[in-house]
């Protein structure tokens, strides 16, 4: 069976578990990271020299980097669905995975870090304010993309949505100061109502 290392509330781990639940793929999850440790052990570092989660073991094939794991598992188990067969449709979905990692997350990270992982007396309000402003700005581009589309890639859920899920779940719960983004909000309702999302992504934030 597929083995997945990572604490359940890690955003990067959630991409993998949400994907597996959407595909009905059985997996065994092993707690690792933060309070659970494990990632600092020589055994784990042999699997993943970065000491980060998630890592997977798929019948002896070890892989890390959450978006690469999503692409690999979606290609293997969901070609034509979560992994579009058409080359252009696939690249169109794929780029939003990169965009989420390279544009949305860096904008939002200071808001998350200060509000959730920093004691109140040590929070940097200037960082929070700047983060709110830039997160709102980049989300407006996603909102424009979602105009006339049910999901990031079009009519159906694809891997591009999977990479977003755990990050936008944090945005929705940590940053109420969003601009008015009707297409984004409608999309968020669609993805967050999915049973697989509720089971794997909508967990207490820590």
């Amino acid at each position, binding site marked *: 069976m597929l083995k997945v290392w990572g604490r359940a509330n890690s955003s990067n781990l959630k991409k993998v578990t949400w994907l597996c639940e959407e595909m009905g793929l059985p997996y065994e999850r092993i707690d690792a990271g933060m309070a659970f440790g494990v990632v600092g052990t020589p055994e784990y570092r042999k699997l993943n*020299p970065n000491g980060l989660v998630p890592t997977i073991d798929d019948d002896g094939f070890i892989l890390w980097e959450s978006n690469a794991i999503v*692409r690999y598992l979606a290609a293997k188990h969901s070609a034509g669905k979560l992994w579009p067969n058409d080359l252009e449709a696939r690249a169109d979905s*794929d780029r939003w995975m990169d965009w989420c990692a390279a544009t949305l997350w860096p904008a939002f990270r200071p808001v998350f870090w200060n509000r959730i992982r920093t004691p109140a007396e040590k929070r940097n309000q200037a960082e929070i304010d700047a983060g709110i402003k830039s997160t709102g700005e980049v989300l407006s581009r996603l909102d424009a993309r979602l105009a006339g589309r049910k999901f990031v890639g079009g009519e159906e859920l694809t891997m591009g949505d999977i990479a977003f899920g755990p990050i936008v779940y944090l945005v929705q719960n940590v940053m109420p100061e969003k601009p008015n983004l009707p297409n984004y909000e409608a999309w968020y309702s669609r993805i967050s109502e999915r049973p697989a999302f509720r089971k794997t992504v909508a967990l207490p934030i820590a």
Partner: protein
Amino acid sequence: MLRVWGRINSVNVKKVMWCVGELGVPFERIEAGMEHGVVGSAEYQSMNPNARVPTIDDDGFVLWESNAIVRYLSLKYGLGTLCPKDQRQRADSDRWMDWSTAQLAPTFREVFWGTVRTAPEKRDLALIEKNRAATAKTLDIVDALFAKRPFVSGDHLTMGDIPLGCHVHLWMSMPIERPAHPSLTAYHKRLLGRPGFNAGVNTPLS
């Protein structure tokens, strides 16, 4: 013909230039970004709402996000060469693209901007040093990798080498202190032996 928008001194444009060079795909490059402007025009932003470079137009298919572009071009024009046919080997290569974006680029960028794009009297030396040390430590991981294999996923250059190789070249070319990293240095020399790399990546820093 494939059209590529972006200034050649952008690390993200270099990825695409090197990729098309390796693939032997004819292309036309259009200057855009920084002193060239263009990215602020309504026309450009209708292609790429992020107003960043690169963007490509491949016979009417418009795509942005440099790693997604490299994946798309490698699969379309380089199946069996830049894009491994085997699913596991492809994922093994692919993850280094995500790794370069998520683990390497954030600290690297601070060193590059501080050293190459900031006037000496305006440099934040403490910030540069902190990020230089962090980048050096991150690169320990690929130095160890290249002690075991010549390219990220084995004996041949694949798409996973492209984002990494672009960053490694800039790192090795900046006037900064670097750890010995003998295997990474040998990797850089291997890349410098490739015409596609020299044409697309090995240009003056600015």
